[in-house]
């Protein structure tokens, strides 16, 4: 499954994660796995909406694992270590007023995935691959 995610489109943000979640439920994936995968996917999708120029969410579901790939074009992550610190945020003010940008996105993704690789995070964009074992 692959979905386009538009930058700053808050009204349809979360649609790809919702569709992904519905598919996991249809496939009778255990509920704790569905919850972790949904949270990881939604955080990644919101990161694309908030921080990038647009991107894609790509989902692969196997019998033993789920792979979530979030890829965007954008400024990348300037300081990965800081970005992984809970509470550190580079989100703009209007996004923070919506309740996003608490600096929990990447740490939340890492907490919910069994493996999280930030494949690249340069000025051409960011690609994050998360695996959740079933």
């Amino acid at each position, binding site marked *: 499954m692959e979905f386009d995610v538009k930058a700053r489109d*808050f*009204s349809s*943000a*979360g649609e790809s*994660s*919702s569709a992904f*979640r519905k598919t996991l439920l249809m496939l009778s994936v255990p*509920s704790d796995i569905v*919850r972790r995968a*949904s*949270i990881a*996917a*939604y*955080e990644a999708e*919101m990161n694309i909406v908030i921080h990038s120029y647009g991107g894609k969410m790509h989902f692969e579901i196997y019998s033993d694992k789920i792979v979530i790939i979030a890829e965007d074009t954008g400024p990348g992550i300037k300081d990965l270590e800081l970005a992984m610190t809970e509470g550190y945020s580079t989100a703009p003010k209007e996004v923070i007023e*919506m*309740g*996003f*940008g*608490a*600096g*929990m*996105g990447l*740490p*939340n993704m890492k*907490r919910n995935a069994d493996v999280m690789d930030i494949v690249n995070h340069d000025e051409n964009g960011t690609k994050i691959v998360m695996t959740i074992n079933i």
Partner: protein
Amino acid sequence: MKVKDILNSEFTLVAGSGGIEKEISNVYVCDLLSFVMSHVKSGSAWITIQTHVNVVAVALMTEISCIIICEGEKLDENAKVKADEENIPVISFSGTSYDAAIRLSELIK
């Protein structure tokens, strides 16, 4: 306790009536969405003043039983549509988050 059991003249349902049979096993108060995603337990009643559509998405992803919007804030129209679609009950409360938590604590006793 089910969502429908907390509905009264103070806690009024504004969307997501299809989900009122959901069980409430906890209460969580927070307006920072990522914080909610990180800390809320599934089955919680979530007290917030946020009213936009992403609140419904967060509730859906984290398996929250209902959203309680405080201070009489009005739910956005597209959030209402989404809550109805996804059967996420959204309840309006005119008082503060603190008052909502106290009232819920009395109801859940």
